[in-house]
Structures are given as structure tokens and as C-alpha cells.
């Protein structure tokens, strides 16, 4: 056999397509699919949410309960005729105290509100506490936790199906980003509900913004687009606007005595 010296044929083993074109094509189609999925999911969840009964919500809560150790937490007692008359929820409400030092409070599906010790320490008046309780009641009333759960659950299950990789990390980051924007609107709506609750309970809205004004001095959330609570300045402004629109009045607040509220 005669040997014929030849250089390799370069056209066969790799595509001449430029990598950036590949990036645009693949990236673009994935972004398009994600956007479509996200909006379709959003609409369908909003449609379906009215069919989720309170008893089903409580079943969900039973999943979360053992993880958070809710049964071991002390209760916060605020109940009485005045309170019941201002609350309009289809299920039994529980308010618990968590030992966490983080300045936060949150609502769980099924009618549980958890308030952190860290928050109580910062609280100076009863009215502030009740505003926050009202705010969380707003979340429960609007079923915000279910909406947030629904969207991110579906998004994260998709990511879980595909398996961990840079692409799915970006996917979950983008969903989180979308979620935080969505929940900023929800937070403002919950603020409105909290204000109305305060007005119902005390017949005035004094103290609604006190806590936030104090926190404003410590606020760094300006820098974080992902923050689920909108910038404090925005929130204070919104609350003040609501007070003006609804012509609420402000009177003196009642100093806060934690022991009066914590039950054994």
C-alpha cells in the first residue's frame, strides 16, 4: 500500500457555528420556555388557589410543623372579643413565640403566625406588635404563602428533575428574583391589611410606622434586589399614604410589656 501524506480534514469533526451563536440560540430558547412556564404557572396558581380549602392548608402545615418545632414554642396570647371581632379568617389562629434573635415575624399556612424574640425585644409599643400581627393576618387572608409556595415549588421541582448544574442554579436564582418582586407587592398589600386591623382594634393607627422608622436607621436592604421586604422607606411612605387616603387618625400608643402577652 502506498502512503499518501495528507493533513487532517478539519471540516468534519466540529461545527463551524460560532460559540456565541450557540449560546444565544440555546440560552434564548431556554429563557423563552422559562418565561412562558412562569407566567402560565402564575395564572393557573391564582386560578386554583380558591379551591384550596383551609383544611387542606392545615394538612400542609402539619408537614412544616415538626420541622420548625412549633409545638415547643410558647404562645402569644392576644385573643379576646376585641381581637376576634377584627379578625376574619376561616380557621383557628395560633400565635407562637420563636426563640430566634432575628428581627422577623412570619405566617405559615393553616393559621399560624410566628413572632421572633428578636422582634419582641425591638418592640416599644403594643400598637407596633398589633400592626405586625395584622400584617401577617393580611398574608394569611390573601393566601400569599400558598402562592409563593406554588410557584417556587414547581420551579424547583423542574430544577430537581434536571439535576444540579450551573444552568439550574441560575434557574432557581431567577425564580427567587421573580418571587421577591412578586412578594413585594404582597407585602404592601399586607401592610394595608395591618393598618385596617390596627384601626379596627384600637380605633386609631398610632404606632403603625414607629417600628419601621427605627429600623430605617439600620436598613441595608437598599442594596438587595432580592429582599423580600420592600425597602423600608418605600413601606413607610406607602403606609403614610394609606393613612391619608383612608383618613385614619393617630393617637398615643400603649407601651409594650412583653410579659403581658407571653403565655406559658
Amino acid at each position: 500500500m502506498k502512503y499518501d501524506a495528507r493533513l487532517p480534514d478539519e471540516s468534519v469533526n466540529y461545527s463551524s457555528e460560532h460559540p456565541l451563536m450557540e449560546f444565544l440560540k440555546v440560552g434564548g430558547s431556554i429563557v423563552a420556555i422559562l418565561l412562558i412556564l412562569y407566567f402560565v404557572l402564575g395564572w393557573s396558581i391564582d386560578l386554583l388557589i380558591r379551591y384550596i380549602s383551609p383544611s387542606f392548608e392545615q394538612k400542609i402545615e402539619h408537614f412544616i410543623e415538626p420541622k420548625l418545632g412549633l409545638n415547643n414554642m410558647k404562645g402569644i396570647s392576644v385573643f379576646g372579643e376585641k381581637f376576634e371581632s377584627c379578625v376574619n379568617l376561616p380557621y383557628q389562629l395560633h400565635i407562637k413565640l420563636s426563640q430566634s434573635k432575628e428581627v422577623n415575624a412570619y405566617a405559615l399556612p393553616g393559621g399560624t403566625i410566628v413572632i421572633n424574640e428578636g422582634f419582641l425585644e425591638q418592640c416599644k409599643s403594643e400598637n407596633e406588635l398589633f400592626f405586625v400581627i395584622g400584617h401577617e393576618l393580611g398574608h394569611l387572608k390573601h393566601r400569599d404563602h400558598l402562592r409563593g409556595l406554588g410557584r417556587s415549588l414547581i420551579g424547583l421541582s423542574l430544577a430537581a428533575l434536571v439535576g444540579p448544574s450551573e444552568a439550574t442554579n441560575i434557574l432557581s436564582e431567577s425564580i427567587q428574583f421573580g418571587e421577591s418582586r412578586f412578594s413585594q407587592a404582597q407585602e404592601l398589600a399586607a401592610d394595608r391589611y395591618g393598618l385596617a386591623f390596627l384601626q379596627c382594634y384600637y380605633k386609631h393607627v398610632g404606632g403603625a410606622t414607629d417600628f419601621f422608622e427605627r429600623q430605617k436607621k439600620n436598613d441595608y436592604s437598599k442594596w438587595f434586589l432580592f429582599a423580600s421586604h420592600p425597602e423600608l422607606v418605600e413601606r413607610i411612605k406607602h403606609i403614610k399614604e394609606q393613612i391619608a387616603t383612608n383618613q385614619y387618625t393617630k393617637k398615643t400608643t400603649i407601651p409594650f410589656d412583653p410579659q403581658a402577652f407571653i403565655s406559658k
Partner: protein
Amino acid sequence: MYNLIIFGVLLLVGYVVGQYLEGRHYKSIREREANLVHLPVTDLKRPLRQDDLIEGVCVGGSVVISVDYFKRFIAGLRNLIGGNVTTYETLIDRGRREAILRMKESAMDADEIINVRIETSSISKGSKNNRIGSVEVYAYGTALKYK
């Protein structure tokens, strides 16, 4: 947010540096291939000539080439939707050609190299999410010297 920015920067660096290094490597490959084209390399079991042989030596050339961040990201996206991972094609191509060149370079005074085989294996270092992926290509054969 910061994560997205870091990710974007990594992609850009991976792309720019990766493309540059790949271009440079291909240039070197083509030059050396032109210089060594006179040395036959076949996968046949028999020598090309019927002449007497003085020497037969097993020779091999190996190379490890790593993937850049940009290529890995696109391959990850392909994981979702499927199709040709064209970004990896140049990687494998370079690996094979470089391995064969190094094999040739290790047998410079041979007349031909027969029974050439190529083996590829992937080398991964790091945890599940943070793998540093590289590919090792090893080309080996029998270098023959005629009288």
C-alpha cells in the same frame, strides 16, 4: 444579584480566554501537523512496507485539556434541551490531534507508527456542583524502523 454578576463575569472570562487559548492551540497543532505529515500513522495491524524491520517500539502521547466556564455552561444548558454539544467538539478534536502529535514527536526517528489507538477519559476534581472537568486523551501505537 451578586451571584448573577459573578456568573456573568465568569462566563465572559471563560469565553474570551477560552477562545484565545483554543485559537493558539489550533495554530500550534496545524504547524506541527504540517511538519510531521511525512510520518505515517495508521490503525492497521500490518506495516505499510514489506521491508525488513530493525526496531519496533511502543510509543504514546497524552494530553489533558480542560473545559472553560463558558463551554461548561452551554453543555449544562444542552443537558436540559438535548442536541449536539458543539462547544465540546473542538475540545475533543484538539485533544485527539494533540495526543497523536505528541505520539509522533516521541518517535521522531521512526518510519511509521502502526496499530494506533486512542483512549479518552474524563478527569474531574471537586464536589458535585463545582466540578473542574478535563479530558485526557492518550494515543498509542507501535513505532517501526526499517533497515
